[in-house]
């Protein structure tokens, strides 16, 4: 290698190294669930917020359980999650303050078209799960402590079934990956509507049960308590709470559609009260 080339390469490397050091900017870490991030809703809402409040929002998309534990450890400034009981425990323990309702969507039960357990069109999700368990049809569980997983476990509990056996499979993966597994195994699965819609073109699973009030899926936003973790960006976290529950933020949620359907319904302000 000749000298000029090596000098050029070294200069190039050093430039790249230093360009890698990010410029200091106000930064807000939002830990949220894969379902919100995958829906594309955050890409719609956050850019305007970032511009208005001169802050960069870094979105960490994980399951609800992990989002909460990130916040407990002080590795996130604010969380947007869906598991009411766990959220309340989080606030109760002093990790979070000022929880607000943001929006809701619903869960659905998907299954193979031939429906071996015969649950199609049932109104009660609990009864449907009972039928699936009794017929020992394949059921795919997230098994990752996410909001969806917590919801599924609470439904099993209501059905007084302790799911186990070779028909009950835990993937430990995200919603999309788990739907794919259910599709391959021709099994039933509890999924959020948004992810199901995103996948509906590529899978053979059908929507079998929906509309049960128990399948209601509310999302809440909670800033991390600055009294507990003094380093958190509480000011900008509260700004985000304010923004997402404002007329503007709620309207954005209301207007956001994908695959021809509204994915989330605003719940801080009801649509009738929009200006």
């Amino acid at each position, binding site marked *: *290698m000749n000298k000029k080339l090596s000098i050029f390469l070294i200069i190039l*490397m*050093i430039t*790249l*190294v230093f*360009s*890698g*050091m*990010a410029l200091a900017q106000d930064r807000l*870490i939002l830990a949220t669930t*894969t379902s919100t991030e*995958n829906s*594309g809703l955050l*890409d719609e809402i956050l850019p305007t917020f970032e511009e208005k409040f001169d802050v*960069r929002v*870094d*979105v*960490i*998309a994980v399951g609800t359980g992990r989002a909460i534990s990130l916040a407990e*450890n*002080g*590795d996130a400034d604010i969380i947007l999650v869906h598991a009411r009981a766990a959220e309340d425990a989080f606030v109760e323990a002093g990790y979070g303050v000022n929880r607000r309702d943001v929006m809701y969507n619903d869960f659905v039960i998907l299954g193979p078209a031939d429906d071996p357990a015969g649950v199609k069109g049932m109104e009660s999700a609990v009864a449907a799960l009972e039928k699936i368990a009794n017929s020992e049809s394949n059921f795919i569980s997230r098994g990752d402590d996410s909001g969806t997983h917590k919801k599924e476990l609470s439904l099993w509990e209501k059905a007084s079934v302790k799911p186990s056996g070779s028909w009950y499979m835990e993937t430990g993966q*995200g*919603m*999309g*990956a788990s739907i794919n597994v259910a599709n391959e195994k021709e099994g039933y699965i509890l999924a959020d509507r948004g*992810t199901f819609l*995103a*996948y509906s*073109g*590529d899978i053979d699973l059908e929507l079998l049960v929906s509309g049960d009030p128990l399948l209601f899926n509310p999302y809440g936003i909670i800033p991390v308590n600055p009294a507990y*973790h003094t*380093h958190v960006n509480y000011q900008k976290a509260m700004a985000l709470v304010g923004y997402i529950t404002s007329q503007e933020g709620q309207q954005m949620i209301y207007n956001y559609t994908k695959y021809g359907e509204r994915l989330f319904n605003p719940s801080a302000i009801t649509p009738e009260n929009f200006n």
Partner: protein
Amino acid sequence: MNYIIEAFQEAWYLIIGFDRELFNVVSTSLRLSITSTFFASIIGIPAGIFIGRTNFGRKKIVNIILNTLLGLPTVVVGIFVYSLISRRGILGEYEMLFSFRGIIIGQIILIVPLITALIRNAIYSLDEKLYKTALSLGATKIQQFKLLLLEARYGIMGAVITGFGRVLGEVGISMMLGGNIKGVTRTITTAMALETNKGRFGFGLALGLILLLLAFIINIGVYSLQEGKEYEQR
């Protein structure tokens, strides 16, 4: 079957259309890999030469540890560094989790053993007669060292490129320590792992093709360096 063809088409349009998001991800990956390879080389090259050239008491155990670390799984490095740089960890106050720096620390730890071991091997394989001849001709210590660098240069460069390829293709560390933040720490591999969850198969496929292309270029580099000596003799 149709959707595979569609995905390939989409991937192709994304690549030739210089899709901004796609190239953002590729550039993040390259910047990360180059930075961590740069720092890992600063540590690994001297360490490899030292282990290769000097005899010290615990050399055997050092070599065994080094060989063990060669197969270090990325998730192990990920968990280890995570526990250090999380807010609850001892380095928590430096805010390195979910940032560029966090990933770089993990990647450096991953490839320092690799680069060190490969350079050690390159030094071992040098012909001892060379030094004896140089010594008998009255070469000074500095001259000997220059000769060593000259003789081992292909091995050293090959080691650095191999390290680069390893960090470019790893996913565990980038995911755990970077968090796959769009526009900041989203790399080729983490994007492929998670973006496909959105049903964006074409996007993932385009990244896969680019990763393969980069791996191909890297291997051309390694191959020509390994063959370098013979080329020069011709």
